[in-house]
């Protein structure tokens, strides 16, 4: 079976949950294990969050507590999923600032935003929870994160979790 979908949404933190749910719903037909679903959710969340806070960094910050107006911007994030039999391919792309040194960016604990309470674990999670991870980026042009995972091989975990 081959099945494909793409969603494009504003680079706003409200949409992080939406992206996770959309991808999860897209793959449920394949009866993935709960653990696989959790892995996919985490990986998607990391990539989408990175596009929002790093890719479009200057354009939004969370100041909802003070009730201030959010600075508006037109940045979009796209999430493309392709299912080929039991292989899931996910591409998360933005047209943000891009990454100059991809190798350094992917090192665990490396972050350019420590002041925003980021820990530098995003790529490490994508790597740990997906089978393959590839990052394409060009400064000033944007970033595309490609991930692949084979479904139906993970351990079942207790459903009460």
């Amino acid at each position, binding site marked *: 079976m081959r099945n494909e979908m793409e969603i494009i949404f504003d680079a706003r*933190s*409200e949409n*992080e*949950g939406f992206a*996770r749910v959309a991808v999860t719903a897209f793959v449920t037909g394949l009866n993935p294990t709960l653990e696989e679903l*959790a892995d996919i*959710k*985490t990986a998607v*969340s*990391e990539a989408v*969050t990175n596009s*929002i*806070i790093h890719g479009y960094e200057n354009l939004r*910050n*969370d*100041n*909802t*507590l003070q009730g201030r107006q959010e600075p508006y911007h037109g940045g979009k994030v796209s999430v493309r999923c392709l299912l080929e039999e039991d292989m899931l391919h996910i591409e998360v792309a933005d047209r943000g600032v891009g990454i100059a040194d991809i190798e350094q960016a992917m090192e665990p604990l490396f972050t350019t935003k420590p002041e*925003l*309470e*980021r*820990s530098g*674990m*995003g790529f*490490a*999670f994508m790597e*740990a*929870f997906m089978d393959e991870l590839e990052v394409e980026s060009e400064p000033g042009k944007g970033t595309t994160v490609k991930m692949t995972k084979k479904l139906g091989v993970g351990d079942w*975990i*207790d459903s009460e*979790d």
Partner: protein
Amino acid sequence: MGRVLEEDFQVIDHCLMIRLPAEVDHHQAACICEYADRLLYREDVCNVVFDFENTTFMDSSGIGIIMGRYRKISCFGGRIYAIHVNRQIRRILGVSGLEKIVEVLEA
């Protein structure tokens, strides 16, 4: 998805108890940090307890929240505890190496 409310943050016996929302992600993170730090600075807080009872999802934003609070209290000898940790959260803590600074308490 559940908003973060002020009542989810309570200081009991010099312990800041934080009841985390269903999904701990970047969208919720700033709010959690702000509420937590208000109490950290105002009250006499020694340790921080993260309660994951309602939490089904956490990404690296949660790691940032925990590490940030740890930095603020560890210099005074404060400790971080986690309660009601399910398997998913435990994996996240494990992969991030955070189990070294977070003591997971069995309920």
